């Protein structure tokens, strides 16, 4: 699959490596080239073979350069909920990417965008739930 990831933080970089190792064609986009250091994890033999591009994922030109037009999946994983939401809506409504997955920290916003048909995950609710279950087990 052709995958475009916006945001090369811990999660974005980790996901890029996982998908790359599985043989997917991965392009990762970040404003800050320094963040690409996370693609080279220590003590791991395989190298990231995908593409790392400097660019703003809420900019249509940058997304085009990242190959959004032929992508099968788009992930928005920056720190900013609103940036993620906007990039996902660009991917979905302008570039018609078949699958668009969005991280939204704020549970209320996550709920609203899920209701609007977006595949949105709130790490806040997921992790809080996990911690609660840990306590109860």
């Amino acid at each position, binding site marked *: 699959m052709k995958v475009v990831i916006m945001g090369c933080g811990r999660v974005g970089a980790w996901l890029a490596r996982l998908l790359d190792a599985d043989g997917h064609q991965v392009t990762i986009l970040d404003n800050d080239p320094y963040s690409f250091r996370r693609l080279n994890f220590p003590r791991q033999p395989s190298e990231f073979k995908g593409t790392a591009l400097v660019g703003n994922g*809420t*900019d*249509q*030109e940058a997304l085009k350069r990242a190959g959004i037009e032929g992508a099968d999946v788009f992930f928005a994983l920056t720190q*900013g*909920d*609103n*940036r993620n*939401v*906007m990039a996902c*809506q*660009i991917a979905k*409504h*302008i570039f018609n990417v078949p699958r668009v997955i969005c991280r939204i920290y*704020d549970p*209320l*916003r996550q709920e*609203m965008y899920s*209701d*609007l048909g977006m595949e949105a995950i709130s790490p806040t609710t997921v992790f809080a739930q996990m911690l609660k279950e840990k306590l109860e087990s």
Partner: protein
Amino acid sequence: MYIIVIGGGRVGYYLIKALIEEGHEVLVVEKESNICEAINDEMGSICFRGDGCEAATLAEVGTERADMLVAVTGDDEDNLVACQVAKHKFNVSRTVARIRNPQNEVLFKKLGVDVTISSTNVILEHIEEEVPTHPLTHLLAIENSGQEIVEIRIPPEAATVGKTIRELSIPPGTKLALFIREGGRNRVPTLNTVLRAGDRIIAITTPESEAALRTALTSA
């Protein structure tokens, strides 16, 4: 009208001042406490400190009875989300977003934002008006119709000088609405109108036909 403004920065500040002067009930949502305090000190308690993209904040400021929400922060994505939350959670009938990247206009409209204002485009339009060499000026976009009103000035070197309108290849869907000649009366152009250098034509066209229209009227 009850108008909620998101963002108390420089644009927001002058906007709320003007809105209050016009007699509207205004409330500003601003994240920064010092900006909030400054506004409250000057204009009375009209600034609420909070994140205008959060449904909880918008509920607290009574968004469900707002007639309009105007998002004028410096970030396009924040303005988009504030408008979407206002629309979908609180059924605000008019949402207005400031945008920096003119490309976002199409996206925002598609996503239900009623009005977008692109500061970049506004400045560009003023430059077009001020720079006399620019043969085509955007006057107005006719809302929700895909059409716009433009002004075209016939430059002295244009091949159309001395020709009649009948001889031009005006792109389909474009109407020449008004013909302005220095010292003359304004008229509706007819097929027999002969063009002279310096004539101005007001036309209704579409963004797609704009280039063809410019070429038809002004190319050398």
